[in-house]
């Protein structure tokens, strides 16, 4: 990690960017899977059975984390750009990270 980059704002940026790219690449697959329902519930069920495998479940948790992280980082950006500037805005990166972790925890425990 380049020394000039090792600070919260940069971490917030890279998480937001990578999660965004990840979600954008995932979405077509998500839409295609849901589209299986066009062939009736059975077609969708077949896929859902396949998705019970632990590796797939872990990947699903990863996707939920990506969504939560991207959401949190996005809220941070909206706050920084549209709210009148306050000193505590710099702490928003930490708040965003906390939210994403909490969301991931909730999802993991819901299983």
């Amino acid at each position, binding site marked *: 990690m380049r020394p000039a980059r090792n600070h919260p*704002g940069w971490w917030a940026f890279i998480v937001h960017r990578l999660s965004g790219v990840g979600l954008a690449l995932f979405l077509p697959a998500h839409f295609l899977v849901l589209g299986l329902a066009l062939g009736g519930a059975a077609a969708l069920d077949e896929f859902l059975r396949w998705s019970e495998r632990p590796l797939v479940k872990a990947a699903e948790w990863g996707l939920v984390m990506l969504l939560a992280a991207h959401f949190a980082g996005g809220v941070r950006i909206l706050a920084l750009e549209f709210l009148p500037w306050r000193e505590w805005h710099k702490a928003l990166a930490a708040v965003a990270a906390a939210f994403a972790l909490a969301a991931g925890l909730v999802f993991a425990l819901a299983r």
Partner: protein
Amino acid sequence: MLRVAVWRGGAQGKLQEFEVPRRPSQTVLDVVTYIQRRLDSTLSYRFACRVGMCGSCAMTVNGKPRWTCRTHVDRVGGDGRLVIEPLANLPVVKDLVADLREFFDKWSRAGGRFHPTQARDADFARVRPDSRQRREADAGIECIGCAVCYAACDVVKWNPAYLGPAALNRAWTLANDPRDGAQRERVAAVAGDAGCHACHTMMSCTELCPKHLSPTRSIAGLKRATLGFALGEGES
């Protein structure tokens, strides 16, 4: 003794190793000066005031852009090793000297110049120092154009046309100056992928500015100020 690696050459070049004696209260500028005076007089570098007022001595020290006259060796050379290179995101003239022309060209392109509207015999403009606009301008007015923020910014690195944090910060201070007569032109100048809209709020500029300014804050202001432009204001 300090082990110091110094960039030699232009865009192509290499790091040259020197051994420099450690002294109390030594700054990185002291180290560079020692090398040039006692060890290798062919080393090229810039400095002027030596006391943290002019910004001329800005270089990359152990990966971070800093004012070398205000960087104590004790704070960065913990394990006795320093790597000193020219500022990033700028062409290298020679050794530790970077070519700042594009930095200042972008300053100009961002509308970073005051446009007067009064003749010399007009009365003084009345600007309340506690007005919201003046407080916004004052928050960014102390910039001395040292290019540390420009060197730190990854958007500058990835987007060659990006005007950069310093130029946009200056544009914001002028956008908040009611005496300036070029507000519409400036709004058009700072909008778009080369302007404020390319900023991703990474905040490396704010993190590293030696004057503790926040270009991110100024750029956020410009984003709000260009909403009208985006929605079609000033359409010919």
